[in-house]
């Protein structure tokens, strides 16, 4: 895999290789060794508060979890099976109804077996986040042939 990621190829992997991300409409904006930026357009069906339409925390968790995993591949510049060990999310303020939600995830430390990730979720200002998160991931978690970033050129199911 080249050092630079082809955003349209990554978007294609998400749309065709990760059913839940395709379902909710995750969009890729940036992906390099420094980290990844993804977004999710606001949708009423993800509201957790029927009074004001504020997004449910769970959909924010999903966007962050997705980006957190991908930023490890970006940092390692290769795909390998990984498993989330834990993920902590602080909800700093309610997401604004009607606004797209962005997430920026960075893998700030990798050891032989473990990757450590930081992520935030925000609308337009990363300095004023909706949520802050840290997570740890186990590397090479599985021997089964995985959803393969590098293999995406060969098409789904390869």
């Amino acid at each position, binding site marked *: 895999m080249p050092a630079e990621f082809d955003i349209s190829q990554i978007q294609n992997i998400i749309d065709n290789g990760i059913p839940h991300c395709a379902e909710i409409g995750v969009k890729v904006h940036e992906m390099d060794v420094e980290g990844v930026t993804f977004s999710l357009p606001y949708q009423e069906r993800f509201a957790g508060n029927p009074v004001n339409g504020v997004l449910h925390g769970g959909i924010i968790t999903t966007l962050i*979890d997705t980006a957190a*995993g991908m930023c490890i591949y970006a940092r390692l510049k290769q795909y390998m099976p990984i498993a989330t060990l834990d993920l902590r*999310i602080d909800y700093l303020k309610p997401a604004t109804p009607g606004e797209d939600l962005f997430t920026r995830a960075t893998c700030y430390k990798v050891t032989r077996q473990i990757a450590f990730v930081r992520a935030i979720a925000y609308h337009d200002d990363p300095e004023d986040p909706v949520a802050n998160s840290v997570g740890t991931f186990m590397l090479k978690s599985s021997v089964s042939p995985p959803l393969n970033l590098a293999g995406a050129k060969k098409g789904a199911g390869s």
Partner: protein
Amino acid sequence: MTVLTDEEFVATIEEAKLTKDWARIFNTIPYFSFLGLSLQSSDGALICVLPEDRKFIGNPTLPALHGGVVGAFLESTALVHLLATQEVTRLPKIINITIEYLRSGKPVETYAEAVITKPGRRVANLRVEAWQGDRARPIAAAHANFLVS
């Protein structure tokens, strides 16, 4: 989305508790409807159920549920537990959640139960566990804090 007032929302929750018609809670909250959640109550325990659905898959090769869905399910179970068992004057607000992923979740029907570890006046702390075939082998667990007043 049907927009409710605070009063209408609290009234809906009160009605659901009175009639034990928990579907009212799930129908009221759009994201719960999206997840297709339901609640089973047996012997006083409230078990939340996430149905089998292809749209929840994160890794089609294993295959496995998306970790975000598992986390969302745990958070939802904690919130439903608060709504169903506590005096609620407004929708509790999630402060934080720590999710531990214990096993890969298969794309099958999944269950979760929440326990209130501390029912504070302002903040409630809950522990939630999710499992599939075997309750003794949970796929994930979480601790969450909610602002309740």
